[in-house]
């Protein structure tokens, strides 16, 4: 479980394919979920995570040995991994689930990630993961739990809602500034560490054409949940999905008395 002895970092970046934030969400007619036949892209927080991993390499140079992107999702999620590779990840793992399968829940995702991390450490002393960087939440389900659960399962340090990350590879230490209510908090934690990203951490780069071409030749591994011995069956049952009530326009009143009458009518009382 412990990271490699050599002073080289292996970074794992879990990413999720989500409905793009610019798309207007529509509930499907059966009210079982949303219309997913729309433009998808990488969860923006995960994009920040990939960018941060690439920036760590730009700062730490050869001290970063590898950046591996991983996703759990339907066949089309491989496009999201291609984007991560084009941004600068070295290799990718796609844990593929059928197109029709329900979206896995945070605990199942965390267990899958744990299985991948264990698999990596078995692969060789110098390929164990030292740092996991992932989005603080996915913008589709807004659950925001995967990072914390993974840290719990592994017993690793966690630094959530990061707005600045510095890693001292020699000391095996991360300094992270976290966004908290009313300000920011700086913490120091030992590697291995789980870092979840907040919006202000960085601004992700464009994927350039040469890197998009190179990304096509980077190692790309496909696995199934069964290969990793994990069960992705959801524990929760979605009963119904509905749209929020439509906003109703206000009315104009002529006098204060009329306003008071309307307020009373609406059941609003003086406290």
């Amino acid at each position, binding site marked *: 479980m412990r990271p490699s002895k050599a002073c080289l970092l292996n970074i794992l970046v879990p990413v999720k394919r989500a409905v793009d934030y610019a*798309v207007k969400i529509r509930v499907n007619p059966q009210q079982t979920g949303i219309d997913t036949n729309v433009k998808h*892209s990488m969860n923006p927080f995960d994009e920040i995570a990939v960018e941060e991993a690439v920036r760590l390499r730009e700062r730490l140079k050869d001290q970063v040995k590898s950046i591996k992107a991983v996703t759990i999702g339907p066949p089309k999620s491989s496009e999201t991994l291609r984007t991560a590779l084009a941004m600068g990840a070295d290799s990718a793992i796609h844990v593929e689930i059928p197109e029709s399968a329900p979206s896995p829940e945070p605990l199942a995702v965390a267990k899958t990630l744990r299985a991948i991390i264990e698999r990596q450490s078995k692969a060789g002393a110098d390929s164990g993961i030292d740092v996991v960087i992932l989005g603080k939440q996915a913008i589709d389900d807004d659950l925001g739990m995967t990072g914390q659960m993974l840290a719990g399962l592994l017993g690793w340090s966690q630094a959530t809602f990061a707005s600045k990350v510095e890693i001292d590879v020699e000391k095996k230490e991360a300094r992270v500034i976290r966004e908290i209510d009313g300000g920011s908090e700086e913490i120091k934690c030992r590697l291995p560490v789980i870092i979840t990203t907040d919006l202000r951490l960085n601004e992700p780069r*464009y*994927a350039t054409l040469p890197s998009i071409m190179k990304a096509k030749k980077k190692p790309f591994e496909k696995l199934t949940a069964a290969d990793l011995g994990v069960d992705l069956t959801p524990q929760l049952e979605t009963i119904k999905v509905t749209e929020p009530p439509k906003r109703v326009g206000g009315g104009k009143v002529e006098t204060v008395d009329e306003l008071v009458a309307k307020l009373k009518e609406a059941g609003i009382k003086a406290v």
Partner: protein
Amino acid sequence: MLAVTRSSLPRVPWRVCRAAYATAPSLNPVIEQDIHHFSKILPSTSVVSTLSPVASPASDLDQFNNDWMGKYKGQATTVVKPKSTHEVSQIVRHCWERRIGVVPQGGNTGLVGGSIPLKDELVLSLANMNKVRSFDPISGVLVADAGCILQSLTDYIAPHNHIMPLDLGAKGSCQIGGNVSTNAGGLRLLRYGSLHGTVLGLEVVLPDGTILDQLTTLRKDNTGYDLKQLFIGSEGTLGVITGVSILTPPAPQASNNVILALPKFDNVLPLYKLVKQQLSEILSAFEFIDRTAYELAVKHGQGRALSDEDVRGAACFVLVETSGGRREHDEEKLNHLLETLLEAEKPLINTGVLSQSPAQFSSLWALREGVTEAISKEGKAYKYDISVPLSSFQDVVDGTREHLRSKGLLNDSAVKHVIGYGHVGDGNLHLNVVAESYSPEIQAALEPYVYEVVASHRGSVSAEHGIGSMKTHALHYSKDEVSIALMKKIKEIFDPRGIMNPGKVLP
């Protein structure tokens, strides 16, 4: 002929110049009796006037008397805002009888002063004519009042999976009637063609108040002269467009864009050729931005910049947009093109970026569309919207810069930048000269120089902005004497009293 006299005149600021084209002397100003008459036709809220009995404050007329750039200023006393074609007809008939000049006004987003009165003509605002009359989701034909805002029409047909055949920066304010009467171009022209093709019918109130109803929805109709074409691009000098029937294309299901960095301008044309060949029907925009325009857009926060590494050594940029019916198909084509470009032995491009999400898609577009706004933040702009052969784009920009340099005007206190950007696909270059302030010296250095350059390439002095009051004197650089004489005859037939948008288009 006119040009000779004009260029020999001492150069004075344009405002003074315009007096030369003022309203024909036979026109009458709006007086109180006219207001009484308008009040009988229209509800009181639809007449704004500084004259009694309405007596609105002068500031109420500011938005109708000034253009958005603050370049043109009219002295209209009265604005009428009819709600129906019948009301427009009654107003125009009255003006015809009283010989009052009429300036039809849409969203007032023009760049050449076409919608601003030269003196005290009546402003006829179409803003209250804003109803969609019909939309057929099968044929895609939309029939709407002239005052409908382009964006609201886009929103109206979006649920039916259709889009407007034109799109331009001013879409949130400009009106479809104004678009048609100025034959607006914009960003989708490459794909869907000009309004001369997409407009199927028009309803026009003629200068004597007669209603010309050609509001058909037929795509094919070869029965005699196609009169509606005369109103498209006539800038309100032949009549007031009150209704438009327009063919809207189905909305593309997938869009992608890519910005390519080019080492030299000479590569733009071979690139355009290759892109056209490979992308074929999914190519929807091919836009050119020179390095200076790009730097300005970035400086003024329009879209996120490319990394320094990607920009290094780039002389200009090209934005390519695809839109098609199926994403996988489009991406395969686009990827194949990009591979060809990168793997070529003598690459036409240095590098480029491909948008990965709708957010990046908008950000890349902002780098191109934001140039206009960036220029207005940088200084005072002399804007030339010209059509020249693609191969001479760069020569025109460089030539103008050298010309200004030779006149000693290229420095921080005079002209700061000479930039070029535009719609390569349509052969339309926007040549912009950004100066510290408007000055007679710069004006004199640019005109007639630019127009002469355009004429030497047999280009157009106004590719999509129109003539308005700004370029009447330059019309002859693009149209010969025979053409201008015919235009004047046509004007004479429609409007013998010269009341419609006087002083615009024709010299």
